């Protein structure tokens, strides 16, 4: 009984840790991003100290194994493995410890382990499966968002998905739980949860991995989510939102250029605040005295002789609180983006909007990713030159009248031919994770290289999302894998399973 509970205790412990750390972070940042752009300001010293404490707390946190709750050690023997681009093993042996790949080889590299007394405790347990192992897919664009985030009545451009992630998913957020389960069974090992699904500014989304209890957990990087223009729908050629986004960045830049003024304002404010403090103390003393006098006079005192009215001392006035210099989290976020501290993700489909996005990246030096990108094939060369990665959704064609000359596969190939980095994602469609390998296979059928297309589902999106532990099966990487028995993961005629580490 006790043994059976051991793993669970372990996990509760990790959940507790998780909650404490998240709570601390939430209090410390309290809706404010400790912005690099403001680091020179005396006002922000406190924020920075807080952030520093937060970082220290985070770095002293237990290793990933405990966070994700995977705790076993075992070896899987399979017919083969797609370890990473160019590395294919047949057969394959993979040792997994705490949800990570310890070694991967075409030979059984298990050694006899020994206990403290030097006695042999046998070899690590081996599970034999039929099929080929490959890294789980990384879905760089999902429609998932925590219920807490969606419940917001007025979507804010500064809200962070991370702050809304549930602590316990099955009970707290059953919809998200079902979505995570569906994604996992479709072979997705990590994904991106966007900040909001409508409007120009969508807030701050985050890449997530999944724990042993299917809890989405922040991993990789956060990004600012935007959407401009209309979907690739006939009749809605363009809107002016892309210009709006442009002006927001311009405004932020102008503001930054006027920092000296802001410094003065802050200094003045600090002085005024000190003066206010003095005035307030003085006021409080006066008020107390006045109150005592009034009381001594009795309730009818004021109604006494009419002639004395002018001599009556007036009640002291409460001093005014000085006005704080204006600050804006939304603007700070844009400034962080200009510093390259946070990635920018923009959904744009039409040529006009994509041009604006390219302009935005060039002008402000953003780390920018283009999503949707229905018309991106027309601007493939420009996108390549601007080094903008593209995330193509697999279920986009339903927006437009299907154009056989510009099918999903053909648009992907046109982008790749121009050397644009392309990831394939489920996009805004719930449950489309099942379609990832099927639509990707269409690209192979249309002449794309199997390896390149598979990379667009694994290592490429992992890199875009900053998920350094996902996308291949090399040592140290996540052991959330898929197992396929067909010719490739794109073959739907044979079994395809997701492997969740133990």
């Amino acid at each position: 009984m006790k043994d059976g509970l051991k793993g669970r205790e372990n996990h509760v412990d990790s959940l507790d840790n998780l909650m404490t750390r998240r709570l601390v972070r939430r209090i410390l940042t309290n809706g404010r991003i400790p912005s690099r752009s403001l680091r020179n300001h005396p006002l922000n010293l406190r924020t920075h100290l807080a952030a520093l404490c937060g970082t220290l707390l985070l770095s002293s946190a237990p290793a990933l194994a405990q966070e994700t709750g995977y705790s076993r050690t075992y070896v899987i023997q399979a017919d083969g493995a797609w370890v990473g681009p160019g590395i294919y093993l047949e057969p394959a042996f993979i040792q997994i410890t705490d949800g990570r790949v310890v070694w991967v080889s075409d030979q059984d590299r298990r050694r006899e382990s020994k206990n403290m007394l030097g006695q042999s405790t046998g070899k690590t347990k081996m599970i034999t499966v039929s099929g080929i192992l490959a890294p789980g897919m990384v879905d760089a664009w999902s429609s998932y968002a925590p219920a807490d985030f969606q419940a917001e009545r007025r979507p804010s451009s500064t809200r962070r998905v991370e702050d809304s992630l549930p602590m316990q998913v099955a009970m707290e957020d059953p919809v998200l739980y079902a979505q995570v389960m569906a994604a996992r069974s479709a072979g997705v090992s990590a994904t991106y949860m966007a900040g909001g699904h409508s409007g120009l500014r969508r807030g701050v989304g985050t890449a997530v991995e999944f724990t042993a209890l299917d809890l989405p957990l922040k991993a990789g990087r956060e990004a600012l989510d935007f959407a401009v223009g209309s979907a690739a729908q006939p009749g809605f050629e363009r809107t002016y939102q892309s210009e709006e986004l442009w002006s927001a960045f311009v405004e932020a830049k102008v503001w930054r250029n006027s920092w000296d003024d802001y410094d003065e304002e802050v200094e003045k404010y600090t002085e005024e605040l000190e003066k206010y403090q003095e005035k307030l103390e003085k006021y409080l003393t006066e008020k107390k005295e006045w109150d005592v006098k009034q009381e001594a006079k009795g309730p009818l005192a004021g109604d006494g002789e009419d002639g004395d009215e002018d001599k009556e001392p007036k009640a002291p006035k409460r001093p005014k609180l000085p006005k704080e210099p204006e600050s804006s989290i939304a603007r700070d976020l844009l400034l962080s983006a200009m510093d390259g501290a946070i990635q920018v993700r923009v959904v744009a489909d039409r040529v006009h909007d994509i041009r604006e996005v390219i302009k935005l990246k060039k002008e402000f030096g953003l780390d920018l990713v283009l999503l949707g990108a229905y018309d991106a094939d027309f601007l493939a060369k420009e996108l390549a030159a601007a080094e903008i990665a593209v995330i193509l959704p697999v279920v986009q064609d339903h927006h437009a009248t299907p154009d056989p000359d510009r099918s999903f596969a053909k648009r992907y190939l046109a982008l790749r031919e121009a050397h644009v980095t392309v990831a394939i994602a489920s996009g805004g469609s719930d449950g489309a994770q099942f379609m990832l390998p099927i639509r990707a296979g269409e690209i192979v059928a249309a002449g794309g290289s199997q390896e390149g297309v598979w990379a667009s589902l694994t290592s490429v999106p992992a890199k875009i999302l900053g998920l350094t532990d996902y996308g291949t099966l090399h040592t140290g990487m996540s052991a959330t894998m898929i197992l396929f028995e067909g010719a490739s993961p794109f073959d739907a005629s044979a079994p395809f399973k997701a492997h969740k580490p133990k």
Partner: protein
Amino acid sequence: MILFSTLLLTSLLAPLPQQDAVILQPDAIVAADGSLQEGMSVVVKEGRIVEVAAEPTTAGTTVRLSGVLAPGMIDAFSGHGADRLLTEQSLKTTPDLRAVDGLQLSSPIWESLMARGVTAVHITPDATNVVAGWGALVSTAGKERVIEAKTRMIGSLVQSAINDDRVGPSSLAGAVEILEATFANAAAKEYRNNMWFFVESAESARAMENLTSDLKDSNNHAILMGEVGSFGGAFAGQLVGLPTMSYGALARRAATWELMHKAGVRFAFGTRAGNREWDSLRTSAMALSRFTGSATAAWASVTSNPAEMLGMESEVGSLKVGARADLVLWTGHPLDSTATVTAVFMDGTTAYRATSEEN
């Protein structure tokens, strides 16, 4: 005599005398259970399959094919290649309307369908009338394009059709009333036991059950529309029509299909009211395979199941001896998304071949 696949396409055309059997030797065939079988030959004579064996006894010209040979897919209910509207809205019921009269055989869509491995399309009238009219099974190529001009009578118990402003019943009860009155006619004997009903709720499913349960030898089938998850359970163990996958709420769809598959429901995919993409038949089968883990059920859903629902399993949808030799040569398993159609054979000739630029 063995010719190689490069020669095949021309060799199957005119030069061969009509009476000669052709022994097709592909790398593999797709068996009825959806699995690949290597080393099998399919012998075709006069547009029919005459033998399927490892070492055929029929004499004929042997043609080596590189790839996987499979029966062509069947669209169980479709509006492709016909008038945009196949309905008559001034009448309450239109039992004499025939989809075959609205065919557009010159449409370029037929070739597109072949390029996607579809060899037969069951064209059905719009399900806007309670009794909408006769469906027609049409081949995507060949000399005789209409395989069956009167297949099944299409009926509708779909609320959206009932409630629209056009002529028709105003409620489900009204629809049942009209159907009962229609079935009482002697003319209805021809079709009332062989109808396909579009249903979209537990109520309409029950109405269909009540209407047909007192009929002897009823062989009616339902086509499930709308929120299938809420009433699909009523069809446990049955063969039903299902619109091809449209996107959105795929996670729920996956769960629904998996549960229905477990309850013994067998599907026949059709594109009417489904996704209009031309290859959605195959995409839906691939998705079904992924959702249920059964390639057998998935392959049947686009071949033998629609044939069985039409009562034409000896004619189309399989590699059975005596069936039409509507064959598709693929570069891999048809449910492997990387596979493409190399050629389509019908009427003993090459009806379609992929141009090299497409690959």
